[in-house]
């Protein structure tokens, strides 16, 4: 990969600014390996919980003109098995890995972080923002600055890994939430999780398309929302941001970096342009850097 794509993030030098976000592909060591080989510089596992979860019934995804909705329902084999996948991945590939974890209380997140300490994962990401388990767990934790603060604080008291807080777009003040995460000691933010949730209806069967009725909105339609929220959050925190939401091209990566992100996640884009999207976008970034006269991706800074 081109040296121009290399970028520093929390003490690591990544081969590319592109991140495989939580929930995309990453259920197995093979999946993580595939994304790494396709050009992602940093890989995130599916969100792991203390106990295994089967997730929601099918259908779990549905597309519309502007993007897609999904309600996977946090399916995962549990933190122990999930981290074994990271171990198997690390036997073959050196790329850094974020262990995404999902709990319902500061105590659960503390316990999850203790598992991650003993694993091969390089970072821990706190999924505070899944929009698809409202029936089960109520409003996402990242809707309240107090719960964000408490959970990040609790994890920071035990974690030997840098802590990334994944935030929801569905909040009144992203600044408050981002500040709460930073004040509690978060090392980075990851944003945005999917929007909504939303709903799609089959007019012939007269039923919601998703079994869960509602599902988080992702894809191209998310881009302006993501850029605005990242722009706002990065205006008030100093910690780096993994930006995501509608990134499907090299130009989108530049845009989200100009909004204030350090790295860029690609999720729904895997559907639109195939798993090779990471390679394609890496190439597009290099082309942009060359044409616009940047030495490397690190030189693309937040706009005013």
């Amino acid at each position, binding site marked *: 990969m081109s040296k121009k794509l290399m970028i520093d993030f929390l003490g690591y030098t990544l081969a590319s600014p592109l991140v495989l976000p939580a*929930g*995309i*592909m*990453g*259920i*197995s*060591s*093979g*999946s*993580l*390996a*595939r*994304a790494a*080989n396709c050009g992602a510089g940093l890989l995130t596992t*599916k969100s792991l919980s203390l106990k*295994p*979860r*089967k*997730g929601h*019934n*099918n*259908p*779990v*995804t*549905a*597309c519309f003109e502007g993007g*897609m909705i*999904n309600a*996977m329902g946090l*399916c*995962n*084999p*549990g933190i122990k*098995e*999930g981290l074994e996948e990271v171990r*198997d991945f690390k036997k*073959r590939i050196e790329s850094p890995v974020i262990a995404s974890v999902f709990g319902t209380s500061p105590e659960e997140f503390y316990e999850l972080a203790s598992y991650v300490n003993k694993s091969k994962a390089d970072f821990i990401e706190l999924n505070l923002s899944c929009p698809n388990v409202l029936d089960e767990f109520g409003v996402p934790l990242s809707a309240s600055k107090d719960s964000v603060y408490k959970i990040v604080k609790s994890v920071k008291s035990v974690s030997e890994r840098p802590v990334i807080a994944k935030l929801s777009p569905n909040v009144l003040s992203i600044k408050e939430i981002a500040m709460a995460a930073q004040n509690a000691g978060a090392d980075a933010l990851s944003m945005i999780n999917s929007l909504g949730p939303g709903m799609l209806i*089959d007019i*012939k*069967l007269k*039923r*919601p*398309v998703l*079994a869960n009725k509602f599902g988080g909105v992702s894809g191209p339609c998310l881009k302006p929302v993501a850029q605005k929220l990242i722009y706002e959050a990065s205006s008030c925190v100093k910690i780096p941001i993994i930006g995501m939401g509608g990134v499907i091209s090299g130009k989108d990566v530049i845009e989200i970096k100009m909004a204030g992100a350090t790295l860029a996640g690609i*999720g*729904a884009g*895997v*559907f*639109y*342009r*195939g*798993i090779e999207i990471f390679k394609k976008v890496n190439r597009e970034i290099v082309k942009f850097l060359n044409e616009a006269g940047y030495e490397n991706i690190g030189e693309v800074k937040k706009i005013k």
Partner: protein
Amino acid sequence: MKEKRFTLKIMDVIYENEKTITFIFKHKIKSGPGQFIMLSDLENGEKPFSISSCDGSSFGVTMKIVGEFTGKLSALKPGDMVSIRGPYGSTFTIPEGKRCLITGGGCGVPPLFFLAGRLIERNNTVTAVTGFKTGSEAMCVNEFEKTGIRPVIMTDDGSLGARGTVLDAMRDILKKERPDMIYAAGPEIMLKKVMDASDGIPCEILVERYMKCAIGICGQCAMDPIGLRVCVEGPVLNKRAVGLLSEFGAYRRDASGAKEFFCGATH
């Protein structure tokens, strides 16, 4: 890429046997043998089903009634509607003027019937072996015969055709003739044995994995160690691809993503 979802009326329901039904849809789709659709009533679930027939104006899917969801589907009648996405996945290679051996076990048989039709259209000589637990579970026998192929039928209990397995019949055939191409669909352990017995002959098999999104993003059906997605790069895989998969014949993953080891597999 665009998602291909449509809501269709079931035109006909064919009862293949006590536990197997075929839905026929009057709708033109562009599909090759081996591909699958995701079918849902938007009420009780959604699962992948191989396409078992496809011509200019209609297509069919054949399913074994095994659980709660397929149980609900079996109550549907002509005129009822279902939601369909697809077709998805890879297709079997259709050569021209070759000798082809088709081997199918149980639920693996219907997509092979679709394959047989396409092979015959291109002047291939087709020998088919189908295997079932027992005669009452046999399917597609008449359909095969309509295409002019007389399938060798094997049953575990000898209640229909000869007693024995698909492998037994395949080994007998390979002693007498050497096909140019072998195709297989059925239980994974059978597929592995067919590959092992194929003796240097090109071979394509149809692999099954638990599916969720079917559009290549959720990772549920990705196979270790290379993350091959059965919904996109599969379900039809050749020997070379299978050779890269340590997971094949060893384990699959349940809805949570946990490994489930196959009975008798070494791990």
